[in-house]
């Protein structure tokens, strides 16, 4: 089973974990992305996330679908935030349940790594003296 979603309001971790939990699962792997206060030595004031929502959801579904084909996992959830986030806020939650931990760990890692490469969501870092769209320029 798959649950992918994009929210403009804060992500709640515990309902995500509850959703992937199932009696046949022996383990749950969770990745929680958090906003860091420093990038390359510069203080980050806030991050702004923007999504091409319809395509982002479709790419997130592809990732979850690929995972179900490649690993024996039971449920996979991918939730992402948009809007303005401050230090410590949560831009992304990924939760995977499986009978055994190897599949859960590997699938969770694949989900976040692939999301960062393919899902059309963009992050702007706002510093005290300016702002930059991450990865936009060489």
């Amino acid at each position: 089973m798959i649950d992918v979603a994009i929210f403009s309001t804060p992500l709640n971790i515990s309902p995500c974990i509850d959703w992937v939990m199932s009696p046949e699962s022996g383990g749950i792997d969770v990745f929680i992305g958090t906003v860091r206060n420093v990038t390359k030595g510069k203080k980050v004031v806030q991050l702004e996330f923007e999504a091409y929502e319809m395509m982002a959801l479709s790419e997130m579904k592809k990732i979850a679908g690929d995972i179900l084909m490649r690993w024996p996992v039971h449920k996979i959830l991918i939730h992402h935030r948009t809007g303005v986030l401050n230090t410590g806020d949560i831009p992304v939650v990924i939760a995977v349940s499986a009978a055994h931990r190897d599949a859960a760990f590997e699938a969770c890692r694949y989900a976040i790594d692939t999301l960062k490469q393919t899902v059309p969501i963009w992050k702007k870092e706002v510093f005290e003296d300016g702002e930059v769209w991450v990865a936009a320029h060489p």
Partner: protein
Amino acid sequence: MTVNILAFGIAKEILGNRMNSMPFITGLSVEGLKGELEQRYPRLQELTSFMIAVNGEYAGAGIVIKPGDEIAIIPPVSGG
């Protein structure tokens, strides 16, 4: 006839708007469209790269744009 072009992230700043339009050119491929966009908005050439999505899917260079397609400029993604 025009085509609507969505722009996100840095591309939205370069084009000036999230929703943009350009005259429709019959037979224009994704590769051709990228060239047109780079002519109109030279700052796109300064990006690490950018992709084109057609109707919500990453589109290969040879895909031909049809009237009514939803076109989007996808600069390097940075979610997570």
